[in-house]
């Protein structure tokens, strides 16, 4: 299992890049809602954010990750519901055997 703190740093770095690139203001905190009612990103924003997060995590951990696998898209508790949920989901995915 990867260090959740390191995963968190990756995601926060990606959020900073997203904010800068999109001139957005997604608060880099665990309880920030990403998608859905009161969410910080719209559907196109989510596409862009997913791409940036995947790239950042790949850079930091050296392995390809996919935030759009079937599990993520079908989860009742979507990993995109909050920044914290996203960090947990990525940490779990990185911890899975490859």
């Amino acid at each position, binding site marked *: 299992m990867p260090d959740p703190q390191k995963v968190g740093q990756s995601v926060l770095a990606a959020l900073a890049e997203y904010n800068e690139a999109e001139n957005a203001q997604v608060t880099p905190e665990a309880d920030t809602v990403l998608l859905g009612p009161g969410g910080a990103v719209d559907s*196109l924003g989510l596409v*862009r954010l997913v*791409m940036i997060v*995947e*790239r950042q995590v*790949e850079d930091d951990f050296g*392995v*390809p990750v*996919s935030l759009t696998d079937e599990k993520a898209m079908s989860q009742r508790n979507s990993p995109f519901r909050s920044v914290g949920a996203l960090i947990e989901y990525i940490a779990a995915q990185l911890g899975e055997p490859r």
Partner: protein
Amino acid sequence: MNPQRVMLITGTRKGIGRFLVERYVAQGWSVVGCSRGKPDWTLAGYEHFEADVADEKAVKALFLALRKQHGRLDALINNAGIASMNHVLLTPIATLQSILSTNVVGTFLFCREAARLMSQDKRGGRIVNFATVATPLKLEGEAAYAASKAAVVSLTEILAREFAPFAITVNAVGPTPIETDLIRSVPKAKMDALIARQAVPRMGTMEDVANVIDFFLRKESDFITGQVVYLGGV
């Protein structure tokens, strides 16, 4: 980041894929390619990966390596494709699945991963898919192949819209029969009948295909997207 423009071509071990590698390396591109097997040739300026285009893990690993090494992707040519000439009543389901896997899943995967990489910077990119005249000509005996390429046309048209915000164009070239392994098993009479249905009744050449790709790749073609150009006047 590689200062050269970087192009990724699928299905480069032989045929049109190899031809395109040689052409674009000669034009100064840094070219990366893939096929299931290892090619029996090498070329300075070309780097080969062994990967099945429909294997998501292998494709993602290829793109990760490409990004680490080059840091950019300017063009993707989705050339890899397979065909099987057979009456539907004589077509095993495994053949259909194999054709759909390489032609549709492979194209989808490479478009998706390429768009992720291309969208990293403001330059965007160019994606060129491979359609076929077998689809508009509704060729008997090519149902599975033509249907798979019809799916590629749909992907091309829709991805053009989905990727437009990232300055990525998505177009397709639809070749006529060309002297490659893909049509080796097609009887001559069938081939002659097919060619007779074209406005310009001759076999296509690899240069004909490259000519259309060149057009899609041009910097000035940033307003051309979601288009399918069929060769031979089909």
